[in-house]
């Protein structure tokens, strides 16, 4: 199976954030959601670079919202996951599950 059918680590996190946020997913909310859940600081550049890559692979789609005054009259770019993206997440999740099956991760953590 081609490697592009699987998601990279950060791509996986971004797609899961889009799925959680549903129709509220745009740069700010995606960045905050990832920071809140993974406890790691993420730049807006990393989010857009990843979303652009995912869009070129057909895993996500975007559309521009209406301009708002608190954004200096600039539009929000909303993103949503396509059916192809959902399939890629499922495949990647299965691969992770398959790889971690039978491993005692709690036991390993105590030695790290």
């Amino acid at each position, binding site marked *: 199976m081609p490697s592009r059918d699987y998601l990279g680590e950060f791509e996986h996190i971004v797609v899961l954030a889009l799925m959680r946020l549903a129709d509220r997913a745009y740069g*700010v909310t995606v960045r905050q959601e990832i920071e809140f859940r993974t406890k790691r600081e993420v730049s*807006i*550049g990393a989010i857009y*670079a990843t979303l652009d890559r995912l869009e070129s692979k057909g895993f996500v789609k975007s559309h*521009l919202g209406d301009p708002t005054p608190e954004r*200096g009259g600039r539009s929000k770019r909303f993103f949503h996951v396509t059916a192809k993206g959902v399939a890629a997440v499922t495949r990647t999740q299965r691969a992770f599950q398959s790889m971690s099956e039978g491993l005692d991760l709690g036991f390993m953590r105590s030695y790290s």
Partner: protein
Amino acid sequence: MTSQAHLGQPPRLAGWFIHRFTAHENAESIFGDLLEEYSYLASKSGVTFARRWYWRQTVKTIAHLFGSSYRAAPWSTTAAAVGGFLLHKFVSGLPDKLLSAVTDRYLAFWSTHFNAYIWVLKAMMPAHLVASLFVGCVIALAVKGREMVATITLALVLCALIGSAMVWVATRSPLGIVWMLGSFADPFAIVVGGAIVRTRRSAAITLAKHG
């Protein structure tokens, strides 16, 4: 609700830097997102905190956009940098060749006007900078949309070569700090050339978009 004027504007220089690396189709959403979070942070934690956050985002965003832009077209970016290196090698030697030719031809004149000769020698440094600026502009014109990535790649290669040469020289004789800093002026001028082309292209796109 606190007004934007009260909260102050995000650092303009940071915005300028981000603009040099952002694809035009992403610029509006990225700046909107940054302004939205900046305003929220400024009202919640103060303007100083928000400005610091904005600068941190700027540095990380530029690093990511640089990396993703290079990865999107590694061969054409590398080809532009290699072409730029060869062009720089050719162009940067021109002022010295010109000086040698003029010196040889008008030897009698220079011997009686030694001060003028000193001034011509002093003009060599700006001439090299103009040559590097020209190289930066040519590379940037060749790679549309990746002007900064290509020019910075070439500048980094030159910096690495200059740095290595400096280490080699420094092991034999002490180096002056001004001379050391001056040696990095050429790579800097190449990046400035890239920024000039990028700025002009962005302005043209904006003008075309808004009539």
